């Protein structure tokens, strides 16, 4: 149990050599590898952190953008809704107006039709009344009234105004044919004689007088000399009444139509 100094020296050398070898093959490579790996991991971590921050920023931006879009979309929606409401109301109003207009037109037409119908009815009624009157006159004036008709005719002839009388006188004088006296029914002889005499007296001519029947005359006498005609008859009155009735109805209808449109 003693120290061999040669061995001690050899072991010191061995130990120093071992330190160098291990430093060369063990510590330095391992330490370097670990340091490099740590650096790389550190780099990756920082890189990942940076990317994460970037991604978070981007996400934040996107979120804001989306919110803005959402709000603007809402605004646009509101606007569109308001516009649609307005349009709907306007269209409704238009349709309501149109319907109202049509209704009024229809009402006008209805009123007009009613007025036309009423006018027609009035016209027909008037004519009917006149017809009945004519028929009644025709039925009740046969025979008995001849003398009165003759007298009436003579009286009227005497009261003839100057112009007519002059024309008639001229016509009687120049006439080629006979004077034509028309009555609804045939007059008896005395009545005919009175009428003939009156004509001769009044027109100062001996013109031949011819008698004819015409139902349209109804009650009265129509005298035609050449182209001149004088007539005193119920038919003339009735015709005038008919004309007046028509004129009255025609003039009344526009006024009424005007009243309804106002």
């Amino acid at each position, binding site marked *: 149990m003693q120290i*061999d100094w040669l*061995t*001690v020296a050899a*072991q010191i050398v061995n130990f120093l050599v071992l330190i160098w070898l291990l430093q060369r093959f063990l510590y330095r*490579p391992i*330490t370097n*590898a670990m340091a*490099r*790996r*740590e650096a790389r991991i550190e780099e990756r971590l920082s890189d990942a952190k940076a990317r994460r921050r970037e991604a978070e920023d981007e996400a934040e931006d996107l979120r804001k953008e989306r919110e803005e879009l959402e709000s603007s979309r809402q605004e646009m929606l509101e606007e569109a809704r308001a516009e649609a409401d307005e349009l709907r109301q306007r269209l409704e109003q238009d349709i309501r107006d149109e319907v109202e207009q049509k209704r009024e037109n229809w009402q006008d037409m209805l009123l007009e039709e009613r007025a036309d119908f009423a006018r027609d009815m009035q016209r027909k009624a008037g004519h009917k009344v006149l017809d009945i009157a004519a028929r009644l006159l025709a039925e009740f004036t046969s025979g008995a009234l001849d003398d009165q008709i003759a007298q009436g005719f003579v009286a009227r002839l005497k009261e003839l105004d100057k112009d007519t009388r002059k024309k008639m006188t001229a016509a009687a004088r120049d006439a080629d044919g006979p004077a034509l006296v028309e009555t609804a029914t045939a007059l008896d002889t005395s009545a005919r004689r009175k009428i003939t005499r009156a004509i001769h007296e009044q027109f100062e001519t001996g013109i031949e007088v011819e008698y004819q029947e015409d139902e349209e005359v109804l009650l009265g006498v129509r005298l035609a000399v050449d182209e001149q005609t004088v007539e005193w008859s119920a038919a003339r009155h009735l015709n005038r009444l008919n004309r007046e009735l028509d004129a009255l109805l025609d003039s009344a209808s526009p006024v009424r139509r005007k009243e309804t449109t106002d």
Partner: protein
Amino acid sequence: MEISPDAWVLYEWRGLRLNATIVFTWVVMALLVLLSWIITARLSEGETVSRWQVMLEVVVTTIRDQIDEVGATDPARYLPFIGTLFLFIATSNLLTVVPGYQPPTGSLSTTAALAICVLIAVPLFSIAQRGLGGYLKSYLQPSPFMLPFNIISELSRTLALAVRLYGNVMSGTVIVGILISVAPFFFPVLMQLLGLLTGLIQAYIFAILAMVYIASASRVQRKTEPESDPEHPRTSRQGD
């Protein structure tokens, strides 16, 4: 019975004797260097790391952490010296399970050589850190009166290092030898296992003590300096 492998001479040439201590030291060295070389030749710096590389990384990191815990400012600076002390002693002791192997650390010559290395390394590291004046001044701390005691302590602790390791390893071998002659079947195995444990502990103690000596020689200056970095960051791989 041969206690020291020094006495086991394998080859002699003109008075130079090649004893078992040196040969087994070479074996241990070759083993360590070859293993390191094979593994570090294919080092990976990416995510996938081979198991062997992980093992070496764990060993190196643990040694570095231990150095850091003792209080050294720069663990990477002491790593080769302290790490080699530990690895060499541990490997030498663990290989005792191989039949026919004689641990070089069982020789007082080897332990003395390692203790001398520590004896020289302490002032070297201290001078490198503080300069020659600073180192020499540490012998006069806390008062010049303490100079002889400081010198004695320096020498005695070197002696203690050498004898402690030698005694422990040698005793293990001796005990096994004795037990084989007394109870050859069961107890030697137990003692062998116990020897593995003590061998590892001795390697740890030797390396840590060396580090403590070096650190204490450097720490005097740290007290006088403003503490720029009192909590030295541990370079462990916990954050990985």
